[in-house]
């Protein structure tokens, strides 16, 4: 039934993706589980933490990239682990030198507990990387002004969080997300905190262009099946959004015209 639903493709930078679900590759019980979940999700874009990848040459003990068919997915390197702009820029450049695409999910979190992104360092790094010709997808708190600033700099998306990474608490930042979506000139990808398919559907119904899911798929008892569940939810939510949900229509339309008496 879900196959009968089609949604508009997602455009980020110069690439087009048929799926609006992005998948993270951390926290899986094995590389095989990760590979199967990515395939089942039908995603076209997977993100990999560079700190776990072999950037200085082949390494059988850091082989996370070997599990991803780069013809099938755009591998989006992320800078998780970087605590400031300088580190993020340095590791991004290293990824490019290692042959990865010149795309980067900018993640700068000096707080290693809640992994909340540093807005100041993120903006600094984005300026440098965009200037160098990178397609930059910054992970940010749901701050509309920061989102606008990053778009001014030339970021290809903004990726505001729904709630802290791994928390599975859903769209706690919904009110701010709505403003970001309303003002967005680039795709808005809700990243982090999406713990259930209904959270993903809710983000799409809000008008997010895509969602990124990792923990909820990776630690599921059957990651591939959970990936399918998220994929279906994303399609359902997006379809409803494209059709127009009564609750989110901007213009009110009374069933009987209110001004008919004017003749």
């Amino acid at each position, binding site marked *: 039934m879900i196959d009968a639903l089609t949604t508009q493709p997602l455009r980020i930078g110069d690439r087009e993706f048929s799926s609006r679900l992005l998948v993270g590759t951390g926290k899986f*019980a094995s590389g095989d589980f990760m590979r199967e979940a990515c395939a089942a999700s039908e995603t076209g874009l997977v993100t990999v933490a560079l700190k776990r990848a072999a*950037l200085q040459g082949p390494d059988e003990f850091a082989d996370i990239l070997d599990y991803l068919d780069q013809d099938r997915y755009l591998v989006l390197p992320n800078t998780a682990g970087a605590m400031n702009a300088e580190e993020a820029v340095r590791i991004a450049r290293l990824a490019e030198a290692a042959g990865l695409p010149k795309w980067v999910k900018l993640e700068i979190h000096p707080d290693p507990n809640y992994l909340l992104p540093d807005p100041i360092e993120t903006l600094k790094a984005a300026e440098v990387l965009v200037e160098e010709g990178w397609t930059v997808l910054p992970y940010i708190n749901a701050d509309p002004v920061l989102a606008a600033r990053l778009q001014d700099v030339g970021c290809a998306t903004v990726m505001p969080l729904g709630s802290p990474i791994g928390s599975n608490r859903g769209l706690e930042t919904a009110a701010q997300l709505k403003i970001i979506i309303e003002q967005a000139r680039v795709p808005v990808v809700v990243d982090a905190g999406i713990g259930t398919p209904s959270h993903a559907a809710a983000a799409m119904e809000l008008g997010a262009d895509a969602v990124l899911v990792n923990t909820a798929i990776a630690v599921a008892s059957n990651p591939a099946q959970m990936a399918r569940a998220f994929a279906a939810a994303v399609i359902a939510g997006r379809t409803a959004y494209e059709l127009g949900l009564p609750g989110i229509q901007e213009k009110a339309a009374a069933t009987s015209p209110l001004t008919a008496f004017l003749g």
Partner: protein
Amino acid sequence: MRFSDVLPTLPLDALVQQSHDTSEQTVQRVLAQGRATNLTEFAALLSPAAQPYLEQMAAASMQLTQKYFGKTIRMFAPLYLSNECINICTYCGFSRNNPIPRITTPMDQVVDETRKLARKGFRALLLVAGEHPKYVSNGYVADVIRELLPIMPNIGIELGPLETDAYRSIVDAGAENLICYQESYHPETYAGLHPAGPKKKFNFRLETPERGYDAGFRRVGIGPLFGLYNWRYEAIATAAHGLHLLRHCWKSQLSIALPRMRPAAGGWTPNPEFHMYDRDLVQAIAAFRLLLPHAAISMSTREHPTLRNGLVRLGVTHMSAGSCTEPGGYSSYDEEAWVQTKTAQEGEQFHISDSRAPHVVADMIRQQGYEPVWKDHDISFTPTGSR
């Protein structure tokens, strides 16, 4: 404010008593909220009344750990640089009066051993040494780190406490992780166990993680050494230390280890009153996870294989494997089977309990449905990463 200012103000004895007196209803209430939010609730989870709820605590610990760390265990290896030591610690094999052969591994041998560990998979190394300014000087350690960084992207240190400036040069050399166990948070016990040497200075040791943080370490590790004093007292004090560091050292990942005493040279006799049983340790790990969901919890080879196998799913995030606690000891390991070919290991700090080879431990972790993660840090994160 340093933790050394905070510790004397904490009602630790009262919390231990409270833990003993905890009612089953209190335990149920804390478990129902899914988290311990303060030291009183943490003490409740450590209580005798919580023992019948161990399975429930373990399940909650597993779930929280999976949320923040996934189904993964990060692997590391200790590498002992030297057993020279000017301290007397009555329970430690390296204690200065113990008649053990004193070894400081020369640099080329350190490099060879590190390469050997790297071939077994390790990409994270913990450099360990006794406290001796002549043999284990700050300059020597920084040199070692610079030499090893191209082989091991992630290097931690566990040495005698240093001043902030000394730590800064070690961070600049590329170290990521600082570990300093307080051994005992009970000042009188501590004083009795450390009669001579710089380690006598309780507060200087207690402030080590904060000095390390000021110097720029990205991870700071704390812990007691269970078996020296009442384990509930030590666990509650460690938890208080952790909570303090989370507030004051917010850019560092907090890492906790819960080592228990092992037999060592010197013939120290443990006080059976302070013995921590396996069930107590599991209860403590789950309680720490419920109080500090984001903290790394590290488990060394001082624990026996059955326990380590069981702990993979219960809240532990970092594990060592195939460890040797004698300086230069890896040199005589058979690389394939990872067994010590030398019969006597007189220079070791303590005798490990899980001697399985790294790849055997990694297979065990996989069998539990977890991925052993070898590399989780990149050289490019260090200021010297371009080397």
